[in-house]
């Protein structure tokens, strides 16, 4: 689901599996890889440098091009404030 109509990312309400197709409004999105509950996927094509909008609020900027249905997380989004610290390389 999208949390605001302006958003370019959607949130998984249930675990999504790679290869499955989900309907978001009137558009069909093919899921590129497994996505856990609460995690984000691109609802439309996103260009490098684009603001990621969730609740119609910017939560960071895309670091590369993101295709619709692709998983959106720390590998393709960076904070506009402070870097995110994770244990994974």
């Amino acid at each position, binding site marked *: 689901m999208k949390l605001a109509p302006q958003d370019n990312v959607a949130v998984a309400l249930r675990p999504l599996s790679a290869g499955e197709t989900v309907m978001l409004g009137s558009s069909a999105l093919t899921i590129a890889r497994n996505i856990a*509950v*609460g995690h984000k996927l691109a609802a439309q094509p996103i260009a490098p440098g684009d603001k990621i909008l969730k609740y119609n609020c910017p939560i960071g900027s895309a670091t590369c091009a993101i295709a619709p249905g692709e998983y959106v997380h720390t590998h393709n989004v960076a904070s506009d*404030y*402070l870097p*995110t610290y994770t244990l994974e390389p």
Partner: protein
Amino acid sequence: MTEPLQGYLRADGRKGVRNILVVAYLVECAHHVSCEIVATFRDRAVHLIGFPGCYPNDYAAGMMEKLCTHPNVGAALLVSLGCEGYNKRPLVDAISASGRPVKLIGIQGTGGTRKTIEAGKAWVDATLRELEAQQRVPMDVAELTVGTICGGSDATSGLTANPAMGVAFDLLIKDGAKTIFEETGELIGMEHLMAARATNPALGEALKETVAKAARHYAQMGYASFAPGNADGGLTTIEEKSLGAYAKSGQSTIDGIIKPGIEPPKKGLYLLDVVPDGDPRFGFANINDNAEIAELIACGSQVILFSTGRGSVVGSAISPVIKVCANPETFKRMEEDMDVDAGRILEGRATLPEVGREIYDLVHRVGNGAPTKSETLGHQEFILTYKSFEPLGPSCLPL
């Protein structure tokens, strides 16, 4: 069904929803002796707090005084080694002036570990009898201060538990309660939205500056207030975490900014500024969730609302902690630790207003004496470290 509240009346007119005897160590060297005293009274209302440092600190001394004279506290036993830097007399005098039984015992003067444990146990045993005989009196919601915090957040926290706690906050404020939200480091990116909710423009500017201070602090420290588990749970950046954290504050206007140990002067919604002033001097603003809970309690919170997505299990000394679980999968795994299943919203089994109302009712039940899950499991986490603060700015409090 909303239960009426009952509380323990203190000499200053405030009321507590618990009647705790605190055992407080005044330096780490007195920690073990204090633990041994508390351990004897495991199933009774005796909680351990303390300050480990040997060098005096105004912030820590202020926190200890507020905690030992908190409405939920009925008496205090202070345990000193004897040679530490803690300025003991003002603390003893403040507790005594508040009308509470207080005793200071020094390990060196009493003759060592065993004798001090015995002396402490004897005093606690006699004083507990007095506290346990105290009758409760009717209490109004307007006499309640409620603090809110999120810990172990994931992407569901901002969808379910945090906005549901915001709904409960709005209901409590309507009843005249004092409410506090905090962690300015997790409001980074929200400063403009928050300023628009301030009761006046000067407070709006002060709110923005408070968040800017937090951003500077975390930039200097090298990390945002963001744990690896937050990313595992689907949160990508501090801004995204902030959006979820911010939802705890509900929709009401923001009435003021307070700092640790300062109680809200009147009803309404207050931001607790937890980030120290000036350059970082003693390390991270808050080294974990319990450091923040202790500060919410020092601001007068008799009940704490704690939302978690990943599954935090902590409670606290002094004030009951109501655990609101955001993630339905976590709730299934850790139901014994969770008071509210807010993940039902995600599954379509409940609405946001329904869960908000459930939290509001639970605040009343807990305020009427019902134990929370973390209390039942014996959780009494507490931590207090060094910090430094400047006094509040002129526009922070309502007139």
